[in-house]
């Protein structure tokens, strides 16, 4: 049985760890509220953008545009959004799993990385990282999304990559976050969601259809990326809040069982002392 002092030392160390996890939980709760608000605010823009682009493609029936076809290169560009800090449960490893398992497994990939944790893991696994934008995830700006999407589109146009994917954690609600794989280019759309009236109204494009697509698709990608950045930031804080909550309650459980052990050890040492005193007294008589 461990000595009283050893148990006491462990109890102290767990108590101080618990304080840290508790504080981190509180911090991430506050951050979650802020990032969630932001994620919700950018939804209308994205939804309208998506509706406009799909209805535009359905109406015009353009299929020959470069953004609508896979490029010649067999390489796939992947924008990966993870976090800069750990202690968020399975948040970062779930993102990495999206690349190592499933659809993208074993494909030739070129990574555009956002988030230091993802960078470390992917580098260790030997993925080729074209560019790192880890600094943007703490407070994503729309201009960041524009810059990243311009870089990726440039590589697409120069045929360094043939397709563009986005891997991020989508934010369903405070407790549900799902890692998601999204194909950005070539643009895929279904015209099922369109109402008949929308499909049958002829639309005029100024400038021409092709030029309009040229301008709008980069914006569409930037808006997707911006939405993903904000959702990922909210998910990160949600995941951290959950992980820290679990850690705090685990610490609670450990403290309880250590308390029991400590009391037993204390009782044991008292009994032992008593036995020794009685034995000593008997020897004197």
């Amino acid at each position, binding site marked *: 049985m461990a000595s009283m002092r050893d148990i006491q030392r462990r109890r102290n160390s767990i108590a101080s760890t618990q304080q840290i996890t508790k504080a981190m939980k509180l911090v991430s709760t506050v951050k979650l509220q802020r990032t969630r608000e932001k994620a919700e605010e950018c939804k*209308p823009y994205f939804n309208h953008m998506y509706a*406009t682009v799909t209805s535009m493609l359905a109406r015009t029936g353009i299929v020959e545009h470069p953004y609508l076809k896979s490029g010649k290169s067999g390489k796939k560009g992947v924008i990966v959004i993870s976090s800069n800090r750990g202690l968020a449960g399975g948040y970062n490893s779930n993102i990495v799993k999206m690349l190592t398992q499933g659809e993208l497994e074993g494909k030739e990939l070129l990574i555009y990385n956002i988030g230091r944790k993802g960078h470390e893991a992917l580098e260790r696994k030997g993925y080729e990282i074209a560019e790192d934008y880890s600094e943007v995830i703490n407070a994503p700006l729309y201009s960041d*999304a524009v810059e990243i999407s311009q870089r990726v589109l440039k590589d697409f146009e120069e045929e360094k990559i043939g397709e563009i994917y986005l891997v991020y954690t989508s934010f369903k609600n405070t407790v549900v976050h799902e890692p998601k794989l999204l194909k950005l280019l070539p643009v895929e759309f279904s015209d099922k969601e369109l109402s008949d009236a929308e499909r049958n*109204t002829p639309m005029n494009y100024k400038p021409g259809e092709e030029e309009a697509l040229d*301008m709008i698709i980069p*914006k569409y990608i930037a808006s997707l990326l911006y939405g993903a950045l904000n959702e990922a930031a909210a998910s990160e804080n949600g995941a951290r809040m959950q992980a820290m909550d679990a850690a705090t309650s685990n610490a609670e459980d450990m403290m309880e069982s250590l308390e029991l052990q400590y009391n037993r050890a204390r009782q044991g040492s008292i009994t032992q002392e008593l036995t020794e005193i009685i034995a000593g007294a008997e020897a004197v008589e």
Partner: protein
Amino acid sequence: MAADNLFDLKIITPDRVFYSGKASFLELNTVEGGIGIYKNHIPMTTVLEPGIATITEEGGNKKEAALHTGFMEILGDRITILAEIAEWPDEIDRNRAQEAKIRAERRLQNDKSNVNITRAELALHKALVRIELADHVTK
């Protein structure tokens, strides 16, 4: 009768819903020049240029805003503008716009490479729109 000439107008930026309401007339700048829109305009999608948009609301009340880069979809009596940046006059920092204007002008004089010139021109354009709108209101 008055309600008949109104259409739904929505201006959305990445960060917020900038404007949502009914308007009777809208005037703004597109890549093909300035246009004015009443209700029952033909369906049209067009790309915007930096410029001042004037919204005439129900009852003739006019509102002005700076819109920079984006596009507009007109469909029946619904107009949706997706702008990357949109500002009301009181959100514009005139001094900052002035500085940006001077910076862009300097860059245009010095730089010879093509990419920088288009960027500087766009920056100059934006700064001019901001200054114009800020002056317009304070006058």
